């Protein structure tokens, strides 16, 4: 017999647990075990009185181990660890038995539930005896932040950290910042012009002394851990000397590829040169040379008209890529979304019929600085007399993306308003459900209804061309009738999707993605900004589809997280980590491939694996995979686990 004094506390969690598990019986049975000197059940163990009860027992009865049978340790393990520490006991001398998620929530069978709860608690009692006190470690942090992605949420995050007086590295893959919002014309629900509200922020980024902006750049490597990341960034050559370029655009006018390359910023609705200014308000307002289309760069054959035209002598074809290395305390990911390619749903005729366009193309069309100078026009240059907007193309659809893209109902209603405003055509909205849930949104929907837009409740099933005219085929479900509605233009409001390089980015940063492909947050409700990797935060559409207000809010939230780390000056590191017995390690490197957090490296001199405990999350994958049994995970060692299993099976 050991001489431990164990206290066992069984939580009712209101009726969450006690409604299924007979908590009193579990308490009574577990109290019969010799070393269990206290066994109590209580309505809410996590409440103040519950915690006080545990603290008092520790002090008065001299408990040296505590078992709490309650909810998932994910929720309240930190709470109870603090309670133990408040009574002078090391927080790791605690073991929780999850009798809610693992028992009461997954069955209605009261008898079996009570049996299972008891065996889980028995396992916890056996295990807790082998727990050892562990001390948490703290490491100092670097007070800089890296923001990846220069769309609206990345801009918001960067500005906020910079305004608080801290250094920010803002990395953008494109040659300019502003993201998708920079392409919009008006924004719902208030219809302010996107440029009017975004441009000042873009200019602030360009002028802030605390923001170092790297466009045409991407993160290629991330090492380290919260508070102490080392990020490697590759900056692609722009073939333009930024210090000299004035953004005058003379190179663009001179380029012999002028008006020959589909312009990405205009979603292919206009043509540009190989040397060009992305758009008039671009930050930085510098020329770009497109290395995929520049005749000199691709074939070394060109008259170099751009070089001759450039008065500032800013063009430099000898530029090479530059590799930068930044030390940062935290990373904010704001990489945005990709628009669903409507060609994947051929029934809508995108790419086949000239007047079937997507939402971003419509945005460009209505934008005063866009390809049609703000006029809504058909391919033949005339104004449409009727326009259809089809919602949910690629969203809410098992064939493509199951989720709702959240922004399309409102942007569709905005499109309808803009059509009415610009050319007074008839507008037909084909929708499944109208989801106008934000502040001022329902009111906006109401306003557009009153403008005389036709709302047809039914998903557009097909776009056909009959007698030279586009026809949207759908069921008007409120009428219960099959309808063919002829229109001049169709706008497909397509889904927001995870970026095509999301997996690569996730691997580079060592973070997870959820089932829908977006980056995964730590907790969908209570921690939507943090990833499962400490010190890496999410903002905007890279986490899930969002409108501008939500993207901005999350950008600010991510900045606050980052600033919190800087303000503390140090971070706590979970003490649960793996360690390698170098005597037993055979240097086979299996563990290195298994570690998702890239915490293990081979020591090139000793040829033995070594674990960076600050990076290690203590997940145990390496320990399970090590063929020579050389890896041990603190707080999850073999003896502890075997004892737990014994207890459960007893």
């Amino acid at each position, binding site marked *: 017999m050991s001489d431990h004094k164990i206290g066992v506390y069984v939580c009712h969690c209101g009726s969450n647990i006690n409604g299924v598990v007979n908590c009193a019986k579990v308490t009574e049975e577990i109290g019969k075990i010799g070393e269990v000197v206290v066994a109590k059940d209580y309505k809410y163990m996590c409440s103040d009185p519950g915690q006080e009860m545990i603290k008092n027992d520790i002090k008065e009865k001299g408990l040296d181990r505590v078992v709490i049978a309650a909810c998932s340790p994910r929720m309240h393990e930190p709470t109870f660890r603090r309670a133990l520490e408040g009574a002078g006991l090391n927080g790791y001398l605690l073991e929780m038995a999850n009798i809610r998620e693992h028992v009461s929530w997954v069955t209605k069978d009261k008898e079996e539930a009570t049996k299972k709860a008891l065996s889980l608690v028995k396992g916890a009692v056996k295990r807790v005896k082998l727990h050892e006190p562990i001390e948490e470690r703290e490491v100092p942090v670097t007070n800089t932040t890296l923001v990846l992605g220069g769309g609206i949420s990345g801009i918001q995050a960067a500005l906020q950290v910079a305004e608080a007086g801290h250094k920010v590295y803002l990395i953008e893959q494109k040659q300019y910042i502003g993201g998708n919002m920079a392409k919009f014309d008006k924004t719902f629900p208030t219809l302010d012009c996107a440029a009017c509200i975004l441009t000042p922020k873009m200019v602030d980024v360009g002028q802030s002394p605390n923001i170092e902006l790297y466009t045409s750049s991407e993160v290629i490597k991330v090492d380290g851990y919260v508070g102490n990341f080392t990020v490697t960034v590759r900056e692609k050559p722009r073939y333009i000397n930024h210090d000299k370029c004035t953004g005058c655009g003379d190179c663009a006018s001179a380029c012999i590829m002028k008006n020959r390359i589909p312009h990405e910023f205009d979603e292919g609705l206009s043509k540009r040169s190989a040397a060009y200014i992305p758009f008039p308000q671009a930050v930085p307002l510098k020329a770009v040379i497109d290395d995929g289309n520049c005749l000199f760069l691709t074939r070394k054959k060109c008259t170099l008209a751009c070089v001759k035209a450039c008065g500032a002598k800013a063009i430099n074809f000898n530029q090479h890529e530059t590799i930068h290395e930044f030390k940062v305390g935290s990373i904010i990911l704001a990489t945005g979304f990709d628009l669903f390619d409507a060609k994947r749903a051929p029934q809508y005729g995108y790419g086949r019929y000239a007047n079937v366009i997507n939402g971003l193309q419509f945005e460009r069309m209505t934008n005063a600085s866009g390809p049609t100078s703000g006029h809504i026009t058909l391919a033949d240059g005339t104004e449409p007399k009727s326009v259809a907007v089809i919602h949910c193309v690629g969203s809410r659809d098992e064939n493509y993306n199951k989720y709702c893209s959240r922004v399309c109902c409102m942007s569709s209603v905005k499109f309808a308003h803009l059509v009415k405003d610009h050319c007074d055509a008839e507008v037909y909205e084909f929708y*499944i459900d109208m989801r106008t849930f934000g502040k001022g949104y329902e009111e906006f929907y109401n306003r557009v209804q009153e403008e005389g837009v036709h709302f047809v409740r039914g998903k557009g099933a097909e776009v056909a061309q009959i007698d030279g005219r586009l026809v949207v085929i759908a*069921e008007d479900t409120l009428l219960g009738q*099959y309808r063919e509605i002829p229109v001049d233009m169709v706008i497909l409001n397509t889904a927001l999707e995870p970026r095509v390089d999301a997996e690569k980015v996730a691997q580079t940063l060592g973070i997870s993605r959820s089932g829908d492909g977006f980056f995964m947050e730590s907790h969908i409700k209570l921690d939507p900004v943090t990833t499962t990797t400490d010190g890496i935060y999410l903002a905007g559409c890279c986490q899930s589809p969002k409108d501008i207000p939500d993207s901005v809010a999350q950008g600010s939230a991510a900045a606050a997280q980052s600033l919190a780390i800087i303000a503390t000056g140090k971070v706590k590191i979970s003490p649960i980590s793996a360690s390698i017995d170098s005597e037993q390690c055979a240097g086979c490197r299996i563990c290195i491939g298994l570690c998702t957090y890239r915490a293990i490296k081979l020591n090139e001199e000793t040829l033995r694996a070594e674990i960076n405990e600050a990076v290690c999350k203590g997940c145990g994958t390496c320990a399970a995979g090590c063929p020579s049994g050389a890896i041990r995970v603190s707080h999850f060692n073999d003896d502890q686990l075997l004892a737990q299993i014994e207890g459960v099976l007893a």
Partner: protein
Amino acid sequence: MFKDFTSEIMSYPGGEKITACMQCGTCTGSCPTSHAMQYTPRRLISLIRANQRDTVLQSLDIWKCASCYSCTTRCPRGIKFTDIMYILKNLAWKEQSKMENKNIAGFYNAFQGLIEKRGRMNEAELIMKYSFQTNPVKLLEFAPLGMKMLLKGRAAFSAPSVRNQVQLQKIMKLAQERGGE
């Protein structure tokens, strides 16, 4: 035996996902015959879920499905509506008194009769049998086309059959006896 019509449909292969319908009407909009239906595919799902079994099974709309599977491939909720149409037709067929359209009943009877007996089909024979079962005047309507097909060598008047008729008839009968589930 079933709590309601929905659970009855769900008990058959292909009917499982009917409760997932969000009434978007993609099925109807994709259906080449829904323009002629009193109850569109989406409405049939609604009627099933509203437990209106007789209305659904008595409706001729279920016999308008051409089995093109457009609704099935496009359904955003993965509902196999073509299969559900088959389930509905099976149930309606079992309760034959409800089949009012003689053309449909006659054609299906003629086809199935030939298959159950000989295991192979001959269009000329099928048309003759169908006409006699419904209205022999139909033969006159089919005659011009029949003549053309004959002249082009595309009509066979022999009665094709599988060699092992006993086996074929036995398995078809056994399947019939199991109630067609």
